[in-house]
């Protein structure tokens, strides 16, 4: 059974491309959300295995959303993404409950799978 993914990003263009990239690789993109609040609702409704989460959302900091997403009993695995690169994030990634980080420009099914299987 394929891995179920929720994509959270405020740019619709990126969400469409990310969906295509991940589905070509065999992931099952079950939902998309454009901000932190709808991400939490979508995660509740569709129970994804993985959440691909933008660091900078219009209504919240992505890391705060990541912490909220892993609060339930069977939390999804959260992977952060951003136009910026890792060194722009300070030590926030290590301190967060996210599994890892993929720069948007290097998003691929293989990269996500590697983080998920780790």
């Amino acid at each position, binding site marked *: 059974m394929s891995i179920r993914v929720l994509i959270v990003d405020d740019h619709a*263009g990126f969400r469409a*491309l*990310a969906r295509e990239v991940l589905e*070509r690789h065999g992931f099952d993109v079950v939902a998309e959300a454009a901000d932190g609040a709808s991400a939490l609702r979508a995660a509740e409704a569709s129970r994804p295995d993985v959440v691909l989460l933008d660091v900078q959302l219009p209504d919240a900091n992505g890391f705060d959303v990541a912490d909220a997403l892993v609060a339930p009993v069977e939390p999804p695995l959260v992977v952060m993404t951003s136009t910026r690169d890792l060194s*722009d*994030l*300070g*030590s926030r990634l290590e301190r967060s409950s996210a599994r890892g980080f993929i720069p948007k420009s290097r998003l691929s099914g293989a990269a996500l799978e590697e983080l998920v299987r780790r």
Partner: protein
Amino acid sequence: MSAPTLDAVPLRRRERVDPLLLLPVGAAGALFATWWSLSAGKSDISAAVDLAVAWAFVAAACLALSKVTFRSSGILMTAVAASWFVTDLQLSTVSVLWTVGFVFGELYLAFLVQLVVGFPEGRPWSPVARIVVASTYVATVGLSFVRALFYPSAHNLLLVRASEQRADTIDQISAVFGAAIAIAFAVLVLARLLRLRGVGRRVAMPMLVGALLATPVTLVRLVAVIQGNDGLSDRLEAVDRFATIFIPLGFIVGLGWSRLRRVHASTLVVELRDGGAGTMRDRLSRALGDPSLEIHFYVEHSGGYVDSAGHPVELANIERAGRAVTHVVAQGSPAAMLVHDPALLDEPDLVASVRETAGLFLENERLAAEIRAQLAEVQASRARIVAAADEERRRLERDLHDGAQQHLVGLSLKLALAQIGADPAAADAFANAQGDLERALAELREFARGVHPSVLREEGLDAGVEALVRRTPIPVEIVGSAGERLPDAVELAAYFLVSESLANIVKHARATHATVSVSRAYDGLVVVITDDGVGGANAGWGTGLSGLSDRLAALEGSLEVVSPPGSGTTLTARIPCAS
């Protein structure tokens, strides 16, 4: 905005009956009361004591009523003098007079307490003082009235049920109550004495000391009443009433003392010209005998006033603090504003001559204050320019992130998709293009970071410094922390300083190790960057550092570079900020 004119000088004198009229009227009234009480059987010694005290109060009241600041006190002194002989009405055989004398005989004590614990403003000093005043009215008039309901006397019009025992009990209750009030009164007066400063102290101290001297006698007499020692309490009564004289005498002494300490108006010019050490403020303060004196200078181009450090002065604050203001003119235009103790307004001649002459000596200090005010304005405008430039940088970074970077990221993903299922040659070309695009994106990110680092905006200075250190190819140790978020301009200045310094260390210093220390001082932020490199750093290291000192100067900060050849480099920046 136009400057306050000279008409704004408080001139609170109003036409009224000349208070000097009180002197003959009061003196004659006291004489009449004394003659009457002597003929009704009062002892010679009591009559003499009462006359002396009454005259002292009449004299003090005349002086007080002729001064604006002591008007309310003057009215209360008049009230004390007028009620002083009421108790003698008990010598009368006319029932109405006897009853009035019985009930209101101690009313003068209430006026007296109100006079002292509200001196010189005429309002009780504190809520506690207000309670003491109200209690005195209750203890004197209120309890006397209740006592009259039982006191057996043929002349008592208020008698309901004659009972000597009840009357005595009430007398003792009122003595206990009175003793408590006397103690509270003494504590209030003592606390006030310890707090008073300057002109106010000179004026009020003798009278408050007088009040303190009078209190123990009252207290001893009340204790005698409580113990039922009638002989002692009767003998002490005359002494107690005589001790009251310290209060009007203290007032008269205080008034004379405060006048003696002040220079005469005609010698003021000499005092100001040759008045010894210190600034003009110190000389004026000495000449006027007011240590609290402040001078604010008129600034022509803003039409307002600044203090000697050049900071603008709010007129409303001065008024709220209950301070008096006198405007000084020089050659017909405003020069300065003296903020002083309102008690000085009682010397209109002195204040007027200060207004006319001080301007001649203040011009230099006024010009210096004006230049300081202009410098402060330039400083503020420089800080605003930097803040505006920072805001512009922030907007630019956001536009880059939301615009070009998003498009390039999209393009990169499209190239990745195109590689899937393409023939090997095409896939290779796509992969190459994706690599080029990745480098372009990295350069764009680097550029955006230099414009306005997003990590600083979102996570603060500590995270910003950490991100910088991660990108530095030599080991860098971070010491300390900025703690909570600081103003944007401060964080940016500190960040750019660390960024520029680390870049210089990598480029020029040939260092193997560096340390970045960030700490909070009581008045701001201290950033220290050291390395173990070749030293010899100077402004030639690039335009970066001189641009940074401009940025720091706009925040009134400083940058110090210590870089002896061969011994590494230490940069120390201090950035003031309110914490």
